[in-house]
């Protein structure tokens, strides 16, 4: 266990270095720079250059990189060019909304997909279970902004049940936070659940013919218990992988959802930073997304070990 953790820590560092470095150079490859973005189309090249230098963007790429890397090593992620604030603070401020959405939607989709799939597995003849199972693939094919807008039109604009947008912290202001979270969560959950159901169904089907289920049934366990306690845990691995990857993607940016529901999250921040070419901020966000991503994957790997003893032993 400790060995795994140590190894992961090493991997984490490697990934952060690689991603940070790649990002540093990649964003500078894309035409356009922050000075130009601020000064606009009629700016004189000299002014652009002056502003650029005031932003610390003169000097060769390597010099810039080394200076940035040096600062990062000392825990200094620089200052956002557009917001004039330390990157760390800006990023930390934008993490909670994204994390709230990502965690909640992942958990809900996970539970929901497990419920739908097991229900169908337990009672394949129930028409509703069957329909849910069959139609789940459609969930993936629904454009998320489309379903968002429809839901907002119905539940916010017409029925006035839920706010059409906004974000409040779940911890400091749960009464306002919950209603505002409902619609974005629903949208995220629809797409993810569809994906999870497909994955899980496939992997559960793979378990069904295995002999250990016979034993479970011979104990007189109910069919639901057989599915939930025996088939499911054994079939969970691909789903958990899927969950991990998806979570990573959510953390990296639910841009559309965040913008439709006006949620100040990381995706929104990143998009904004890209459009203003706020290099330090882009780099900072990227490093944090990578960090979250690796941590999530560590969790995923640990849960592999919890689920499949053979993986743990070897």
């Amino acid at each position, binding site marked *: 266990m400790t060995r795994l953790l140590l190894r992961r820590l090493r991997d984490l560092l490697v990934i952060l270095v690689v991603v940070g470095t790649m990002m540093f150079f990649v964003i500078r490859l894309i035409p356009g720079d922050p000075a130009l973005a601020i000064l606009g189309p009629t700016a004189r090249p000299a002014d652009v250059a002056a502003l650029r230098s005031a932003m610390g963007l003169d000097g060769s790429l390597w010099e810039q990189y080394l200076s940035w890397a040096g600062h990062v090593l000392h825990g200094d992620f620089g200052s956002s060019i557009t917001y004039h604030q330390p990157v760390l603070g800006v990023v930390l401020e934008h993490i909670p909304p994204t994390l709230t959405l990502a965690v909640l939607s992942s958990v809900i989709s996970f539970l929901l997909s497990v419920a739908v799939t097991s229900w169908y597995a337990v009672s394949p003849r129930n028409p509703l279970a069957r329909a849910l199972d069959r139609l789940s693939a459609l969930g993936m094919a629904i454009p998320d902004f489309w379903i968002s807008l429809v839901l907002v039109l119905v539940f916010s604009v017409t029925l006035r049940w839920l706010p059409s947008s906004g974000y409040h912290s779940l911890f400091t202001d749960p009464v306002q936070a919950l209603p505002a979270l409902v619609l974005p969560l629903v949208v995220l959950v629809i797409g993810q659940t569809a*994906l999870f159901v*497909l994955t899980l169904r496939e992997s559960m089907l793979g378990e069904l013919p295995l002999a250990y289920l016979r034993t479970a049934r011979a104990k007189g366990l109910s069919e639901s218990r057989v599915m939930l306690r025996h088939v499911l845990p054994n079939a969970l691995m691909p789903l958990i992988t899927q969950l991990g*990857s998806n979570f990573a993607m959510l953390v990296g940016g639910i841009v559309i959802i965040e913008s439709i529901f006006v949620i100040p999250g990381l995706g929104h921040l990143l998009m904004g930073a890209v459009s203003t070419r706020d290099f330090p901020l882009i780099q900072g966000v990227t490093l944090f997304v990578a960090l979250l991503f690796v941590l999530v994957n560590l969790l995923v790997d640990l849960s592999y070990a919890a689920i499949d003893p053979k993986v743990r032993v070897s």
Partner: protein
Amino acid sequence: MRRNRTLVLAAGALGLIVLIVLVLPVFLPSVSATDPVHRLLPPSAAHLLGTDSYGRDVASRLVSGGRASLGLSALITVCAAATGLVIGLVSGFFRAADAVLMRVMDAWMSFPAIILAMALAISLGASLWTELIALTVIFTPFTARVIRSRVLAVASRAYIGAARVSGMGRWKTLLVHVFPNVLPLALVQVVVLAAAAMLVDGAMSFLGLGIAPPTPTWGNMIAEGRSYLVTAPWLVVVPGVTIMLCVFLLNLVGSALRQAVDPRARTLHELQRLRTRTT
């Protein structure tokens, strides 16, 4: 036998869509001819599916957009599924490769996709090929990870040891014993990828990284129609429903194919059928 009927029906329907998409545009007027006077017309006899904000005929755009959408989605799916499958198989089966490959995948996945796509599109120029490369690059690690997790489970089964005793090489074992066991999962991934590709294409166009306008794709039709969701809902509904239909059909074909490649699934199918009939 029911299995075959679904397969035939679903595959036939998909085939029909492909055929329409391939053949019909030849007989349709230009998809880029604008006609501002007749913009945002609801579906009517003259314009079966209405017109868009430029006054272009949605039906002909839908049909010709299918070319790019289906073609692109098929290419992306094939490329991403194939590379993901190979990487997943190799890294799940060969411990030594795993450490390296999975870390590469991790780094790859934790790199924000938008920026990756932008960098690619700008360095290579936005085109169908850029989009293909960008989406393949973005989707591959997801497939790879899912496949790998199944490979890990399969690799610990005793019959893998038995294959070794039978003198089968590691690579061949991978192909003969491991691959068929992950194939059903790979088929699911194909459906997932195809759906995602058709939709993401719209987002890419929105970022200016996709197929250049006015060439229609279902994805960018949805993206363009977005601002008219209330006033001209058909602009979004029509391509959206088309995508859903294709995904649904693909899903059907996928599960039917799974039964075809997996003898055990066939038995299961029979079983389910018996169970649903008796009692």
